[in-house]
């Protein structure tokens, strides 16, 4: 007789998730975006990935070489001797490389997504924008999940007066015109990528907090929790080790939607000029340039907007898929 191994809770969730074709393709899109974000400098840049020069091999994308300091690799490429070669990334432009000779060029073989008003390659800027958007999405949601779990956990675990006070705090946060608050904070601090992550994270935790509070209020009455308390587990241990794992599934769903939301907020901020400081590329920043040339520069509208839209849709579909596979009771409501 063969023993069948139990798949466990997350195993069964995964099995169900795999059957959801739309959500599964969203996951693949997200993995692709992550790949672009991680390997951005191999995909676009003005430095060769591999260079054989005067008999030596160099990897200018990965390492810095003092002998090439300040040297233009494109010029170098033309002067390579016999036996030497250079393999460039597929997009041969860096996202911050200005070229005043080719300003606002429409898409062409040279610049598949066109150029912006400083002659920068839009495709290169979009590739580098992926890392910024995704890292802001993931880290902001990480911050909000930590805050939400802590505050929601405290409110749900202790109940009573503590719950009342923390719930008032939720209420304040929920009625805040959050986008305006974020704009205000960023206007008064310097809008670095870290500040954007912190500000978005610190203002978007109410969803997670309410979920955790609700779950904890329910779990608190379970016998296994009472047993854990009776065995002398301290509050923190009971909350983190015994209760949290049982409340994590809805948080995962909410966080996936949260990533979509954070990416949307970041691109909205960049669109208004409060995002990632120039010359760093961001999708919202490319799109905001289109405001000045909207009568002809369609490529500045189409590509960055499509990138934001695709990413946001992928995360929303993924969240939807998680929700359906985690709990059969969720039927697209909420």
């Amino acid at each position, binding site marked *: 007789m063969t023993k069948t191994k139990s798949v466990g809770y997350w195993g069964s969730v995964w099995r169900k998730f795999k059957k959801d074709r739309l959500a599964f393709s969203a996951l693949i899109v997200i993995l692709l975006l992550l790949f672009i974000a991680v390997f951005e400098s191999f995909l676009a840049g003005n430095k060769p990935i591999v260079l054989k020069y005067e008999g030596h091999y160099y990897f200018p994308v990965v390492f810095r070489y003092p002998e090439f300091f300040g040297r233009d690799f494109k010029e170098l490429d033309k002067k390579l001797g016999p036996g030497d070669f250079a393999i460039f990334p597929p997009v041969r432009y860096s996202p911050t490389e200005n070229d005043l000779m080719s300003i606002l060029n429409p898409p062409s073989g040279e610049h598949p997504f066109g150029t912006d008003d400083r002659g920068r390659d839009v495709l290169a800027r979009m590739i580098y924008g992926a890392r910024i958007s995704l890292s802001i999405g993931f880290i902001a949601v990480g911050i909000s999940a930590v805050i939400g779990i802590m505050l929601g956990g405290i409110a749900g675990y202790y109940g009573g007066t503590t719950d009342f006070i923390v719930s*008032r*705090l939720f*209420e*304040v946060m*929920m*009625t*805040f*015109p*959050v*986008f*305006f*608050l974020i*704009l*205000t*904070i960023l*206007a*008064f*601090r310097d809008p670095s990528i870290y500040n954007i992550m912190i500000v978005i994270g610190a203002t978007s935790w109410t969803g997670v907090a309410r979920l955790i509070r609700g779950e904890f209020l329910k779990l608190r009455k379970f016998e296994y929790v009472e047993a854990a308390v009776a065995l002398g587990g301290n509050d923190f241990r009971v909350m983190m080790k015994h209760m949290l794992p049982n409340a994590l599934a809805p948080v995962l769903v909410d966080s996936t939607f949260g990533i*979509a939301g954070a990416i*949307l907020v970041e*691109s*909205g901020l960049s*669109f*208004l000029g409060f995002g990632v400081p120039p010359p760093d590329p961001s999708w*919202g920043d490319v*799109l905001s340039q*289109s*405001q000045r040339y*909207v*009568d*002809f520069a*369609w490529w500045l*509208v189409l590509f960055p*907007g499509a990138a*934001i*839209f695709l990413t*946001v*849709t992928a995360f*929303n*579909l993924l969240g939807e898929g998680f929700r359906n596979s985690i709990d059969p009771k969720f*039927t*697209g*409501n*909420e």
Partner: protein
Amino acid sequence: MRDYIIKRLILLIPTLLGITIITFFIIQLAPGNPVERKLQLDEGIKSEAITKEIVEETKRLYGLDKPIYVRYGIWLKQIVTLDFGRSYKDHRPVIDKIAERLPITITLNVISIIIIYLTAIPIGVYAAVRHGSAGERTSTFVLFILYSIPSFWMAMILIFFLGGGEYWNVFPVYGILSPGAENYPLPEKAADFLWHIVLPVFCLSYGSLAYLSRFQKGSLLEVLREDYVRTATAKGLPRSKVILKHALRNALIPIITILAGILPAMIGGSVIIETIFSIPGIGQLGFESVLARDYPMIMAIATISAFLTLIGILISDLVYVLVDPRISFEGRS
């Protein structure tokens, strides 16, 4: 009912206090003070050239030399009498500037909310009744796509295709009235206004519309599974009557409470949409004030929009109680 409303209005106070305290401390503790900025803007002097005395004098003038909690106390005392101070930018009373702009934003948002509800509910009902059909799946997919399109991208696309670039010039994309339209007779002025707000209102509403119709679909699907709906069908009522008279009434209740959730998002959306379409509303004013570090303006806008959101939540709670006899005013607080 009066007691309930009074109780709820009293409960608004701690929330509003919380919001004003957070906003006040964020902007007052931030580096970069408005005095230097104002002097730069007013007289074009370079930062080094501002002598210390001028800075100190101006700080005294605006009360910025006192400690922060004293300033908050003073601010709070003033707003009880609806005195939000004067704008740092042009010295006009903040309340006057807001009074000029608030009606525009409220009009746009109220029109949007009406459109959202009038379209989302039928779409949601259709999707629930025809659940699983090809038409339902198409509409659900389209709504999902709409929900994920960033409003500022939609605005740029609409401006590009319909706002008179290389393509059609169908809608105006600047302001809320044509130049000179102030002197038009009223019907033409109204038509001109409506013509101007087509694109902004669309951008403000489609996201929430998609969200709400999905919600309506879910809530009606749930109600359709209830026993009393089966009973209504079993006793031979026509399907339209079962759905519209028995099921929909109960399925509408959660839709009303959602209003509270979409209000803050709509105010946030107004900032971007009003800036793109140059609409002289409170969102654009807020954006300009943030750029100019106009403390009294920022405080006033944050306070007033939070207050309006809270009133919106209160109204949706009241409607909730009115439509659902199971909930009494006394039972909720």
